[in-house]
C-alpha cells in the first residue's frame, strides 16, 4: 500500500495528542494536589507567621480564652476572637440532625426499591430521588428559609425561626439522594443466588432482606452513610441560608447555629487578603478538605470490601 508523504507529520501530531491525553489523565490528581497546596499555603501562617500568630494561633483557635466567654467567634470585633469551637459544635449538631433524619429514610427507601417493590414502582421512585439530587443546594436553602422554617418552628415550638433543626432537616434533603444511591447500588449488587437460597429455606422476603441481603451489603451501606455524613459536613449554601448563622457554643438544637463552611462563605468576601482572619478562614477550609478526604477514603475502603465480599470470594 502506498503511503502519502504526510505520514511522518501526522505521526508527529499523533504523538502530541497522545501526550496530551496522558497529561490530562493526571488532571484529577494534580487538581487535588493543588487544592491541598494552595489552601494549605494560606492556612500555614497560623503556624508560622509571628504577626498572624499574635492574633490567631492553634491555642486561640481551640482552647478557652477568658472566663466570661471562653469560646467565642468574633473576628471583626475590636479585639478579634477566633475560637472555632462554636463553629465545630454548630457544624456537628446540624450534621447530626441531617444524618439522623436522612439515613433511616434513605436506607428504608433503598431496601424497599431493591428488595420489595415491583419493577415499575422502582422505575418511578428512583428518578424522583435522582430529581432530589438535581435540586441545587441554594434552592433547598431557599426553601428551608422561606417555607420550611415557619412549619418547623411551629411543629417543635421553637423561639428562633432559624435554628439547627431547620437547617439540619434541609441538609438531610441533600444527603438523602447520596445515601440512597450508594445503598441501592450496594443492595442490588448482592447476587440473586443469596436471596434464592434464603427463600428456598422458607425465609420471608423481610427475613431475607434483613438477615441475608442487608448484612451482605453492609460495607456498601456503611460507605453510603459515610458519604452522606461527608456531604452534610461540607454543604454550605443550605446551612448558610437556613441556620440563623449565630456562632453560639451550645448543643441546643433549638438555637441558631453557624457551621464551618457557612462561616467561610459569609466572611471571606469581606475579609482583607493576608489578614489573620483571612488565614483562619483558609485554615477552616483545609480542615474541611482533610476531613472529607479522610471520610472519602473510608467510603472507598468500604466499597472495595463490598466488592471483594460479594464478587471476590464466590
Amino acid at each position, binding site marked *: *500500500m502506498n503511503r502519502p508523504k*504526510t505520514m511522518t507529520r501526522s505521526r508527529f501530531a499523533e504523538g502530541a495528542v497522545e501526550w496530551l491525553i496522558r497529561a490530562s489523565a493526571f488532571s484529577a490528581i494534580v487538581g487535588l494536589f493543588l487544592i491541598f497546596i494552595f489552601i494549605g499555603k494560606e492556612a500555614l501562617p497560623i503556624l508560622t507567621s509571628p504577626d498572624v500568630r499574635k492574633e490567631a494561633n492553634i491555642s486561640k483557635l481551640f482552647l478557652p480564652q477568658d472566663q466570661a466567654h471562653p469560646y467565642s467567634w468574633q473576628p471583626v470585633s475590636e479585639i478579634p476572637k477566633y475560637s472555632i469551637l462554636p463553629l465545630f459544635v454548630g457544624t456537628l449538631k446540624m450534621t447530626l440532625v441531617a444524618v439522623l433524619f436522612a439515613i433511616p429514610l434513605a436506607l428504608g427507601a433503598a431496601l424497599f426499591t431493591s428488595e420489595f417493590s415491583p419493577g415499575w414502582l422502582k422505575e418511578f421512585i428512583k428518578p424522583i430521588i435522582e430529581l432530589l439530587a438535581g435540586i441545587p443546594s441554594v434552592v433547598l436553602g431557599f426553601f428551608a428559609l422561606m417555607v420550611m422554617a415557619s412549619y418547623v418552628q411551629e411543629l417543635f415550638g421553637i423561639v428562633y425561626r432559624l435554628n439547627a433543626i431547620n437547617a439540619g432537616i434541609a441538609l438531610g434533603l441533600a444527603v438523602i439522594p447520596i445515601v440512597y444511591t450508594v445503598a441501592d447500588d450496594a443492595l442490588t449488587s448482592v447476587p440473586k443466588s443469596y436471596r434464592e437460597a434464603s427463600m428456598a429455606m422458607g425465609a420471608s422476603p423481610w427475613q431475607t432482606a434483613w438477615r441475608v441481603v442487608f448484612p451482605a451489603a453492609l460495607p456498601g451501606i456503611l460507605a453510603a452513610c459515610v458519604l452522606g455524613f461527608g456531604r452534610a459536613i461540607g454543604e454550605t449554601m443550605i446551612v448558610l441560608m437556613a441556620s440563623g448563622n449565630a456562632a453560639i457554643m451550645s448543643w441546643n438544637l433549638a438555637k441558631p447555629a453557624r457551621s464551618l463552611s457557612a462561616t467561610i462563605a459569609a466572611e471571606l468576601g469581606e475579609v482583607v487578603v493576608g489578614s489573620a482572619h483571612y488565614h483562619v478562614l483558609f485554615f477552616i477550609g483545609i480542615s474541611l478538605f482533610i476531613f472529607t478526604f479522610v471520610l472519602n477514603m473510608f467510603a472507598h475502603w468500604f466499597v472495595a470490601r463490598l466488592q471483594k465480599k460479594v464478587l471476590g470470594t464466590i
Partner: protein
Amino acid sequence: MTGQKGLQIEELSIRADGRDLLRSVSLEVRPGEILGIIGPAGSGKTTLLRCLNRLADLDEGLRISGRVFLNGASILGRDADVVGIRRKIGLVFPVPTPLPLSIFDNLAFGPRIGGITAVEELRRMMESSLKSAYLWEEVNDRLNEPAANLSGGQQQRLCLARTLMLEPEILLLDEPCSGLDPISTAQIEEALKVLRKDMAIVLVTNNVKQASRVADKTAFLLLGELVEFAPTRELFTTPRDKRTEDYITGRFG
C-alpha cells in the same frame, strides 16, 4: 530461512498465568497455499492467530517466545512495525464484526487510516474486494446502507472484503464460518480457493470437513501442542498419530 516468501513459525510458545497456551509450535505457509488448523476448543488456535497479527499485544500477561517470520523478517520483536504487520497480515474474526458504520465506511476503514481517501480509488478497491468475497452483486447498489442491515452471512463476507481492502500478504481466518448457514459457508470457501492465488491463507476451523475441503496443508493442535502437520490428503488418509485419527474420525472433540 531468510528471503523465504510466506509465513514461518518456529518453536512458538505462549504462556499465560503459568499455563501453556501454545507449546513450541512450528508451522509454515507460502503464497498460493491454504493452511488449515484444526483442533478442539481450547487448543490455542485463536491464540496463535492473535499472536500472528500482533493482536495478542492487547492481551495482558501473555509471554511469547519463539520466532515468526513474514517474508524472512521477524514480526515478533518489540521494535517491529506493529501497524504495518497488521496491514500485511489480515485477520477475519469468528463472528461477523461490522463496525456501526455504512457498508462503504466499513470497507474504507483500513485504506483511510492508511492515508487513502480518494473516493475513486476506494471504489475501485471496493469493487475488486467485494467481488473476491462474492458479495459485489448483493451490495453494489446499497453501499451507503448501515452494515448492520446485512444478513449474518453477508456481514461475514463483508468482513472478509474489508480485510481484503488492505491487500494483505497473509490472510488469517478464525473459524470464519462458525455461525453461518451452509450456503454462506460454501460461498466463503469458494472465495478462499480463488484468493489463494494472491496470498497465503491460514484457516482455523473446528469443522474437520472444511479443512479437508479447502486446505492444502493441515495442522492438528491439541491443548497447545502441535500433534501433526502434513499435506491435507496425507493427514486425512494416513494420520501418523493416534490422536489425529481419533479426532478426524469424530471419536472425540
